[in-house]
């Protein structure tokens, strides 16, 4: 506290040229210019829009499945088509919607919340987006050419191996994973660097908003989890295309090892999706309860502990395989431990809401919905952590119910809350609250109607991944309920879209800080200009916008004639040096195209890896080739 106050000079001079600032941060014109954008608002919004389209695609696939299961002996989808649809649904929702959506929100919000002008590596950010987009196009090109993957979103060998699934569909799937992991790793690296080195002066680690903590945790999890899926998908792809023997038991390979490596990634993946959502909840709770968060330190520690424990419980996805009993006991215990860290957070939010003055906005309604649904999903999680119960309901609809409760309840409800909360910052206009409330209740009712009956169906023995069932099983009524619920969710989604487009045009003008929220993004104009802040803020509190206006401090002395930001020290965020961010560039797109040629081509012919590597290396050299002026001290 004292250290940061020492650095405030006594005689202020505000001499920055705002017009020059806007000029330096202006987007390049034309279609070529549009492809060269590197601002975090533009890239973040591209992620959000693309991921939202993927949510609609995944939702359409879910509706097709529910329509097929509406009643027994339905002939709407055949077994092959049904396999393709559930695989594409799972793959789309996990890899192409959930993770990129959380990344897009973080790319948009983190530089604003940290009080800087862009992410640390803006061109890498653009490259990551293009890789994601090409991954989307690659998978859906397969889907639309009748080569949709059909071996489940985890593609276990030997079913997914070259003997049992010939053709290209699984290759498309495995290589799509490569695209998304490159993208996710780019985003994780740049967000960690942004959070650690570019926070506003005075925003020491213990003053970081919980959302920033959640993204820091999530990004480190990506760094440690994604390499595992790199290996798993490469095992599969190279076994299929160049005849390696990684998962072929006949030559000493091991299919079970694939499951271990896949879930060493796959379980943290769920937390990669859900930890940012916890950050949304913290932001919404603080802003809408108008009160400082209770148990900040406990929340931060619980979130980081979540991140660690997530790497120690992957085997609970594999209880039905032949494992030593000591292993099962260990993984049961570690799976149950998650209930402790999640419980700490739930209690802190409830305490904050209880002692605050909550305004029942749509955003907060979604948080209430999150708490209700997520706690229920957590409870079935504790049930599934126990080996005998898990074996009983393994591969039944009980599991489907459980993970939709934790994933939709734990991630999608907070995400909708976040849309309602941050829409004013994205667009400058408020979303319609009345329609928002209806939107919430329709989604909440539809969700429970769809997924609650699945618990009972699972207990009655209905297995997952079956395309139909016979009438004497007695599953008809509950399935019909679930299907009706699915259409109600779809209607809720439609209401959201209507609200989105209506509010974008006719919503009330928001102003900088419509919720009287506490964190720095609300100090910027709405929508946030490319440079975010006219003067970079310095902070003296964990809730910087709740300190009296006359006590706020601004940074002067960064140059406005180029894209300059401030680098601060890691722990205490003391100003350290100035840092010039690169200008817009087409090179990230060129590099992404070159890498795509290598990745996509290698599915058909191994030599594409060689040629793709060479042209990618040339593109990277072009990207990094120095442009004049070379020395920032002398221009």
């Amino acid at each position: 506290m004292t250290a940061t106050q020492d650095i405030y000079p006594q005689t202020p001079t505000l001499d920055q040229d705002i017009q020059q600032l806007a000029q330096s941060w202006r987007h390049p014109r034309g279609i070529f210019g549009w492809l060269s954008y590197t601002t975090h608002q533009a890239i973040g919004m591209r992620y959000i829009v693309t991921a939202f389209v993927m949510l609609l695609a995944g939702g359409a696939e879910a509706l097709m499945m529910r329509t097929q299961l509406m009643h027994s002996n339905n002939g709407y989808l055949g077994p092959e088509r049904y396999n393709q649809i559930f695989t594409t649904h799972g793959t789309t929702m996990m890899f192409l919607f959930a993770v990129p959506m959380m990344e897009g929100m973080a790319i948009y919000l983190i530089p604003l919340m940290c009080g800087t002008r862009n992410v640390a590596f803006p061109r890498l950010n653009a490259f990551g987006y293009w890789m994601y987009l090409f991954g989307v196009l690659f998978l859906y090109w397969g889907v639309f050419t009748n080569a949709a993957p059909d071996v489940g979103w985890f593609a276990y060998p030997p079913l997914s191996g070259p003997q049992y699934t010939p053709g290209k569909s699984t290759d498309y799937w495995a290589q799509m994973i490569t695209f998304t992991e490159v993208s996710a790793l780019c985003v994780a690296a740049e967000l960690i660097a942004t959070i650690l080195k570019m926070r506003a002066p005075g925003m020491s680690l213990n003053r970081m908003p919980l959302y920033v903590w959640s993204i820091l945790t999530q990004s480190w999890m990506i760094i440690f989890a994604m390499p595992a899926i790199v290996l798993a998908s490469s095992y599969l792809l190279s076994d299929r295309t160049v005849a390696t023997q990684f998962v072929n038991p006949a030559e000493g390979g091991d299919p079970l090892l694939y499951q271990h490596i896949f879930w060493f990634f796959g379980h943290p993946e769920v937390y990669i999706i859900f930890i940012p959502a916890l950050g949304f909840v913290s932001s919404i709770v603080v802003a809408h309860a108008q009160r400082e968060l209770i148990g900040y330190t406990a929340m931060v520690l619980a979130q980081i502990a979540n991140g660690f424990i997530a790497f120690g419980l992957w085997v609970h996805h594999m209880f039905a395989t032949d494992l030593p009993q000591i292993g099962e006991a260990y993984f049961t215990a570690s799976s149950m431990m998650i209930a402790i860290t999640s419980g700490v957070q739930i209690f802190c939010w409830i305490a904050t809401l209880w002692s605050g003055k909550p305004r029942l906005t749509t955003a907060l309604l979604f948080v209430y919905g999150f708490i209700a649904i997520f706690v229920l999903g957590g409870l079935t999680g504790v049930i599934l952590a126990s080996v005998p119960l898990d074996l009983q309901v393994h591969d039944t609809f009980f599991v489907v119910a459980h993970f939709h409760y934790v994933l939709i309840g734990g991630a999608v409800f907070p995400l909708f809350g976040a849309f309602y909360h941050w829409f004013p910052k994205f667009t400058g206009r408020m979303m319609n609250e009345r329609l928002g409330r209806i939107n919430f209740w329709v989604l909440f009712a539809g969700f429970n109607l769809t997924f609650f009956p699945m618990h009972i169906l699972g207990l009655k023995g209905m297995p997952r991944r079956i395309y139909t069932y016979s009438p004497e099983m007695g599953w008809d009524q509950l399935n019909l309920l679930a299907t009706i619920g699915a259409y109600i969710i779809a209607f809720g989604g439609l209401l959201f879209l209507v609200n989105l487009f209506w509010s974008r045009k006719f919503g009330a003008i928001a102003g900088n800080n419509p919720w009287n929220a506490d964190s720095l993004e609300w100090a910027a104009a709405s929508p946030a200009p490319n440079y975010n802040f006219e003067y970079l803020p310095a902070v003296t509190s964990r809730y910087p916008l709740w300190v009296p206006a006359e006590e706020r401090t601004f940074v002067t002395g960064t140059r406005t004639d180029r894209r300059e930001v401030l680098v601060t020290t890691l722990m205490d965020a003391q100003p350290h040096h100035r840092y010039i961010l690169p200008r817009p560039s087409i090179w990230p797109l060129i590099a992404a195209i070159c890498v795509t040629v290598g990745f996509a081509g290698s599915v058909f012919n191994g030599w594409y890896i060689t040629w793709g590597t060479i042209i990618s290396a040339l593109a990277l050299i072009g990207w990094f080739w120095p442009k004049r002026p070379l020395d920032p001290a002398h221009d």
Partner: protein
Amino acid sequence: MTNVRTLDVSHLKPYEISTQAPLWWGQFMFVFIEGTMFCILIGAYFYVRLRMDVWPPPGDQFPHKLLPSLALIPLILSCVGTYWAGEAARRDSRSGMIGGMALNLVLAGIALWMRIVEWHSLNFNWMTDAQGSYVWAFLGLHTFDYIGDLVFTGVLLLLVLIGRYGPKQRLGVYVDSIVWYFLVAIWIPIYIVIYWGPVLVETQQ
């Protein structure tokens, strides 16, 4: 406006060549990613290896140890060149950067040549069996990164030689060094796994 509290930063340097630079953190993360991948691959190798009675599988000859062991000498010494270049980049010494990077490239090239000679003498490939797949994956992935780093060191050397460099490129020379240290450091456990792994771990009965 006179009541506004401000913090003037105009006296701060417009760049920095040290561990405070965001780019250093970016490279550091790259090292974490690669390191995690190699660690999982080593774990997977032992998972497969400990489930086999005979290792390497019949027909695969033991890799020779002499040449790869000797190759460690130029490889480890190449870090001296990297260190020299990195420190020279901080001081803005052009001759130091050129000397350091050239030394690094020469020694790393010798180590690479020795590795490839030994690689050629293997009597199995990635298709033969699981041990073949793993050995080729270790060699292939590490050599891919290795050559990639040599290419970019070569480009940086070229930029310094033609004088087309400023603080940004000097920072590049500096952060390039942590990737090289990593590639050398991770090679040592990989070397042990590939060339000594079949001998060190007793075959289970």
